[in-house]
């Protein structure tokens, strides 16, 4: 009970510090922008720890963060192996393939109004196929190793990327296109000099959405068959072994990898679309 009270107290004080920081004079400094979410995260972790201990929550239901950290530290080798299998082999290759294919398709679709009208509704429909249904099928088709995971990722990222790229390519204003017309520019000149750069913010939007989809897709696909490694494999088998600390360690890896992946793409975006008002701040 003491621990529970302490947890409540901790929560309140964490919130109070953040309020002071966020509404203080330094609110816009880099340090505060970083500190506030960090303090929030740490408070959540501490409260979690205290509650789990205070309420005697069984280990097999929810392990305390400290136990997860210990498991993480002890299993870095295994976690790294799983990460390579799922993220690098499965998610990343599928991401590159899917986004690349979507980009090329978008160019095709963009050249023909007929294709755009026809393909996008169908695409929206296909994108609505739930992954838990497509994953077993793709595992059956492409085998148990990373290829089927990549296939699942391709299917997942293809349409969001396609829709965004197509939207981006038609993002130019009438005036900008007229300008190209007055220069009697060819299609590809117009494409590379106007439409592609103008589409960049949209393309990056698609790329960013796809990052989280890719990782989740690869992990979920492993639930439906895999070699004896990978993040999804570890999660599903560890649940059965009641090794919940391992499950959470993998979740931490997933969150870390997903966030870093997203951050990396966002960084690239900053570089590539430095000119866009949203990036100029």
């Amino acid at each position: 009970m003491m621990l529970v009270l302490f947890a409540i107290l901790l929560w309140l004080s964490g919130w109070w510090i953040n309020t002071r920081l966020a509404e203080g004079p330094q609110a816009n400094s880099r340090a505060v922008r970083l500190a506030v979410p960090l303090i929030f995260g740490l408070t959540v972790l501490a409260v979690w720890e205290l509650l789990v201990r205070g309420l005697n929550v069984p280990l097999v239901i929810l392990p305390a963060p400290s136990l997860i950290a210990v498991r993480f530290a002890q299993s870095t080798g295994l976690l790294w192996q799983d990460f390579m299998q799922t993220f690098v082999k499965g998610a990343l290759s599928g991401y590159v393939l899917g986004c690349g294919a979507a980009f090329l398709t978008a160019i095709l679709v963009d050249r023909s109004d007929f294709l755009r009208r026809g393909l996008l509704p169908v695409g929206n429909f296909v994108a609505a196929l739930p992954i838990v249904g497509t994953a077993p099928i793709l595992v059956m088709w492409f085998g148990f190793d990373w290829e089927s995971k990549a296939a699942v990722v391709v299917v997942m990222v293809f349409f969001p990327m396609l829709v965004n790229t197509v939207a981006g390519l038609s993002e130019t204003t009438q005036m900008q296109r007229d300008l190209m017309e007055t220069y009697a520019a060819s299609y590809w000149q117009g494409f590379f000099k106007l439409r592609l750069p103008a589409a960049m913010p949209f393309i990056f939007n698609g790329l960013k959405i796809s990052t989280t989809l890719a990782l989740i897709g690869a992990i979920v696909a492993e639930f439906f068959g895999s070699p004896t490694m990978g993040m999804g494999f570890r999660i599903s088998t560890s649940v059965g072994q009641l090794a919940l600390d391992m499950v959470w360690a993998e979740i931490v890896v997933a969150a870390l990898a997903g966030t870093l992946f997203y951050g990396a793409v966002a960084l690239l975006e900053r570089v590539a679309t430095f000119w866009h008002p949203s990036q100029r701040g």
Partner: protein
Amino acid sequence: MKSFLAVLTVVAAIMAVWYVACVPMNIHGVLVEAERGGADVVPATARERRDIGAVALVTRNGFAIPATWAQDRPRLPAPHQVAIELWDTTLNKKITSKRSLVYHGWVTLSATMLGFVIGTVLGILLAVGIVHSRVMDMSVMPWAIVSQTIPIIALAPMIIVVLYSVGVQGILPKAVISAYLSFFPVVVGMVKGLRSPDGMQLDLLRTYNASRTQGFWKLRLPSSIPYLFASLKIGIAASLVGAIVGELPTGAVAGLGARLLAGSYYGQTVQIWAALFAAAILAALLVGLLGLMERVVLRRMGVAS
């Protein structure tokens, strides 16, 4: 009209590719059956055929092509097989029957709707908090983004068990998972929407000395409605996926997710595909319905063009 024709063309093209794809996809299985049925298959045994390309097998065993569209448990069912299964399990069955996709669709739909409502309400509340409080914005928003990188399928069983342990069973656990997936797009869209009034519009209210509450109800909320609908459409699709995922660890009792899984246990590919399409159709219907509502509401608000 023009769009309709275009969609029709694309669908027809997909069908054609699909039928053609069935041949190499299913040829191995068909030949095994043919071999057992006593037909002359080249090469004669499954083991020899394993390492031979599908196309080569098709050219050597042309007679087997029609069978690739009529297998019982094909690797890739032909479109008409899926269509027939869909037709049989939706229109030819009593909707109360456990074999009716309408029944399973309904089970999933009810969890979807409940989850969607929970997720939307939560998302809106969170967005309001984020827009009105810097602390909320700075501390919660980054973690809301991180939360979306966690594979829900890993969390789902734990959510279910935790809810079990506090005595919550039935539709609610599924709805919670579905809400988890749908709240994020709503938060993002709503925050964008509530922040969409420009400086001038906010200044106008300041010159009236309007309170925060007045600003919320008279300006921020109405301006956010188009954004809200855009994210609701994403949210409901996510909700449906959540409900289906939630059905896997709840004992796969009923619902489209259970149907998918059950199809999976017994290698009933046709059944999987039918459930898959049913889910996509349901998603399309839900999104379409929201689109309709959007049109009506925006028109009544006078914002629609």
